[in-house]
């Protein structure tokens, strides 16, 4: 191989390595880009998504009520878990509190994590939880049973086509103990 070839090979290799490093770095550069994307598309900023919602600025809507249903499931077992109230008739804009009852039947101390889900999905962004046991892992002693609170407000802006929504929690064993 002659000298100019070797030189050009070396510069090609260098460029390829740079490209690989650049691609790797681009992965991190995507993080702020995703943040912007989520903010622009209305999914919410990272602060909004990770902190509890507030009822600030909400005043109850007069003359409109929606039914909120509560349900629960325990996909992996080890728990008894159910809503204390099954349905509530709520006024959008007003703050409510309800409870879920959980009992550890796994036979040892453990930690649970509730994963919320709302139907219809398009109502999810209007269902604001100001306080919820699902925000943190819940530690339970052996056979312990307790009620856990969720405080929520249904946003005044809830689209008119929705007259009934469901809050569901799936209760899992948390990885953290």
């Amino acid at each position, binding site marked *: 191989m002659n000298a100019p070839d070797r030189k050009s090979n070396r510069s090609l290799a260098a460029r390829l390595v740079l490209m690989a490093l650049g691609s790797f770095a681009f992965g991190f550069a995507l993080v702020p880009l995703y943040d912007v994307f989520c903010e622009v598309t209305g999914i919410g900023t990272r602060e909004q998504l990770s902190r509890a919602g507030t009822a600030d600025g909400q005043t109850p809507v007069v003359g409109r009520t929606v039914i909120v249903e509560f*349900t629960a*499931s325990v*996909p992996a077992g080890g728990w008894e878990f159910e809503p204390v109230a*099954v349905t509530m008739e709520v006024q959008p804009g007003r703050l409510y509190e309800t409870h879920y009852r959980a009992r550890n039947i796994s036979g040892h101390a453990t930690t649970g994590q509730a994963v919320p*889900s*709302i*139907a*219809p999905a398009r109502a999810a962004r209007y269902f604001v939880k100001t306080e919820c046991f699902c925000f943190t892992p819940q530690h339970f002693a052996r056979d312990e049973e307790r009620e856990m609170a969720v405080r929520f407000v249904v946003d005044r802006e809830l689209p008119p086509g929705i007259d*009934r929504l469901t809050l569901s929690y*799936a209760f899992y064993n948390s990885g953290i103990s």
Partner: protein
Amino acid sequence: MSIAKRKSKRPIVAGVLATLALPARADWSLLNMPKGVSTLSREIYDIHMLMLWICLAIAVVTFGAMIVAMIRFRKSRGAVADQKLLHNARLEAAWTIIPVLILIGMAIPSVEKLVMIEDTSGSGLTVKVTGHQWYWQYEYLGSGVSFYSRLARESDVARQRGSGIDPATIENYLRDVDKPLVLPTGVKIRMLLTANDVIHAWWVPDFGMKRDAIPGFINEMWISVDADKPGTYRGQCAELCGADHGFMPIVVVAKPKAEFDAWLSSQKQEAGATLAATE
């Protein structure tokens, strides 16, 4: 069809079933989508038929042109190739624009129907469906009534490999359960779907709707049964969920509202009694 004949020979349940199911399905039952017994299933059937006819019309035109070309321009008939026929701007523009218009025509009716499908308001009953490997769990939200629904014992025995039982001798082979879901007719029913282990999908063709049951999440859809169409409707899991995916049928018994209410309160009492007994 032989199946229909066999059914009609059976006296009570099957006879009622066949008479109820057959008019809706008519001769097409084994060739085409069922028209079904709900608002949505009929809407879906209509759009399916519309699409089918449009596609058939396009097929006649395009296949017709191909066949004409294949017959008229055979070398064996002395056809000589016209080497200059390479472009035709007008023709090419036409077969780009006309399909776009046809497609828009096809899309418009579906928009309206989609809005209807997604609108779950005004429901009179919420039923939560949980998919398990490999059975269904139904819960009438707010009433405390909840039960499991599994493949009927008869089918389950017959379906084992080497059972020696001819499936044809089993009534509603693989389409029967130990305890069916009971629903009222003439009521908009909100179905909440979730699963415990893997993804399942709840589907009764006569109701038109199908939706996935995803572990950890709830999905939502609505169904209804025409007030004048009480009866038994059958379906099965429609998302591969493991070995026994083919063996988790869905059976819905649709009853008039009053009968349904009576059934539900009897179930409530039963549930209360069981609860009292255990506590």
